[in-house]
């Protein structure tokens, strides 16, 4: 399949597809980070994660409309406000869901899967009733439009670069939170040994709620970023949920670094193959590859060495 292209063309193709893959990578990372916290740290399977992301996307859409109608002069900066609002909205909903639903099910992980799937159906229908079944898109501010011309063939869109830097920033913040802050230590201790963590005075119920809220909040930010590169519909979230779970499992559920590495591998493999094969075949091959690796190495790429 490479024979039809010259070497320089191939290089450009790889560069372009590599960059397109990086945008996919950013979305994966943002979604998977939230999921890695919830699934990896808490052991809860949140099938409604995609819907939390879409909530963030809709919040961004609403914010952009408000800015366009009432504060056109500030339109260039709406995205940052929207991101914060999306984080708060998704995080608050997440904490509510944890309180109402998840906390009763910590001992039954497979049941959280079914309950959150039900939740995702309800959320989808709410979105459909409120925002309509059609996909909505936001208007990008001027400074995010256009692209940078690197060589004759290779050009990179600015919104892609923006989403990417966003993903990197948030990953760093999450890493610092988890590994350097007091709260992160509490979360990890609750995960490793719940009764012991409670015995030394950690309020485990509160830690659980905050952790779940944070994971959902990050999903909301992912939704914000998602509006930069695609349009939003009630079922957009469901399209990503399987990929995201595979990203988390492939990376090794409890390792943030693993999540990022696997998001990178999967997105790059998919987007590079997409140029040479059809979109669906490249996705099939990528997923098969991931499932195959998982059968050989069930614990994922990076796993914590824990004695059980």
């Amino acid at each position, binding site marked *: 399949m490479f024979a039809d292209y010259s070497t320089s063309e191939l290089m450009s193709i790889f560069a372009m597809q590599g960059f397109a893959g990086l945008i996919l990578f950013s979305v994966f990372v943002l979604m998977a980070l939230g999921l890695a916290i919830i699934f990896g740290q808490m*052991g809860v*399977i949140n099938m409604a994660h995609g819907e939390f992301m879409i909530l963030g996307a809709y919040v961004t859409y609403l914010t952009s409309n408000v800015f366009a109608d009432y504060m056109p002069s500030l339109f260039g900066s709406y995205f940052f406000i929207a991101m914060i609002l999306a984080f708060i909205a998704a995080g608050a909903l997440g904490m509510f869901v944890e309180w109402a*639903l998840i906390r*009763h*099910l910590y001992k*039954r*992980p*497979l*049941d959280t*899967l*079914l*309950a959150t*799937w*039900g*939740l*995702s*159906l*309800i959320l*989808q*229908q709410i979105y*459909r*009733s409120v925002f309509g079944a059609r996909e909505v898109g936001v208007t990008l501010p001027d400074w995010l439009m256009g692209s940078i011309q690197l060589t004759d063939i290779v050009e990179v869109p600015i919104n892609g670069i923006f989403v990417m830097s966003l993903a990197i920033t948030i990953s760093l913040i999450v890493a610092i939170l988890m590994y350097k802050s007091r709260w992160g230590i509490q979360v990890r201790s609750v995960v490793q040994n719940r009764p012991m963590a409670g015995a030394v005075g950690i309020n485990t119920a509160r830690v659980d709620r905050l952790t779940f809220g944070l994971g959902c909040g990050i999903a909301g930010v992912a939704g914000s970023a998602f509006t930069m590169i695609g349009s939003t519909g009630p079922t957009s979230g*469901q399209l990503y949920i*399987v990929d995201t*779970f*595979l990203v988390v*499992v492939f990376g090794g559920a409890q390792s943030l670094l693993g999540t990022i590495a696997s998001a990178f591998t999967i997105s790059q493999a998919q987007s590079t193959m997409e140029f040479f094969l*059809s*979109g*669906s*075949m490249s*996705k*099939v091959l990528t*997923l*098969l590859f*991931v*499932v195959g690796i*998982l*059968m*050989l190495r*069930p614990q994922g790429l990076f796993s914590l060495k824990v004695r059980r």
Partner: protein
Amino acid sequence: MSYAGFKTLFPKSDLIGFAVLAVILVIVLPLAVDIFRLNLIGKYLTYAFVAVGLVLCWGSGGILSLGQGVFFGLGGYGMAMFLKLEASSPENTAIQSTPGIPDFMDWNQLTELPWFWEPFHSLTFTVLAIVLVPSLFAYIIGVAMFKRRVGGVYFAIITQAVAAILTILIIGQQGYTGGVNGITDLRTLNGWDIRSDEAKYIFYFLCVFLLFVCLGVAQYVRKSKLGRLLVAMREMEDRVRFSGYDVSNFKIFVFCLGAAFAAVGGAMFTLQVGFMSPTLVGIVPSIEMVIFCAVGGRLSILGAVYGALVVNWAKTTLSESFPELWLFAMGALFIAVVMAFPNGLAGLYSKYCEPYIKQKLKSFRAGRGGDVMAEGVAHERQ
């Protein structure tokens, strides 16, 4: 089978349950509803096959598969391929640029039948393939996963990914599979029109018969030593392993059995509904099949049948009249079944109805016995 063996296989309460279900499916429903509705019920019953398989895998064995749609689909596609080949005889497809191949292949510029379609000219091969191909596929997945001690949540996610892969593959390879429309326009089975009312009746009863075969097999598995080992594994896998059993083999077997049930259901679906499409294979239908099982009661094979019937009936009724309400109802059902009644309809029955019925029966018997005694006393006085 000896009488005693039969008694242990079907204790009295189970036997009554089977009999009631048989009366409902064989006598009451065919008399009560018209052929259109009966055909719909037949369609619901095809999901009951999957649900019964899930009771074995998930309820007994603790293995939650979110990819049962894959096996349902493989069985259904096997049947559909045979029927499609028969429907695309050279005479029927004379207007195509390549007569004798299915219409969607012609539209996708295929000029000859792909190799894996060839054997489906034979009905014997098709029937064998419907059961064997999904079982083999389940065996491969099972060996790869269970031998490496992957289970629980990871197994669920990976089977879900397999469902996603198969759907994307079917939709993407339009020329070989019929794409997103699936395989449609199926007409005859060995020259016999499958769309007539008579055929629909026959398929309904065939479906009920096969369902009872599957129920019998499931009951046998549950009552055998294997069934008890499965429950033991669900509760404490390591102890079973330390007792010297190879846990993975039991898991593989029950997963394959569930897959075979699902495949039979899929084939019956194709026969009764007249098409097969990727919308029945993917993530959403697969997880819905789990809810049929959960609503019926994940520990009860008969409950699973009722669960499949009730949920699908509710789905049809609600989505006919209030399409928006349906997703809410479905979502609420998922949450309720997990939070409020984890053992489903069967659990509710054994908690509330069964004691009541037992007591009624007891007092009925006591009442009759009391009469006899009273008569005896009366005789003595005379």
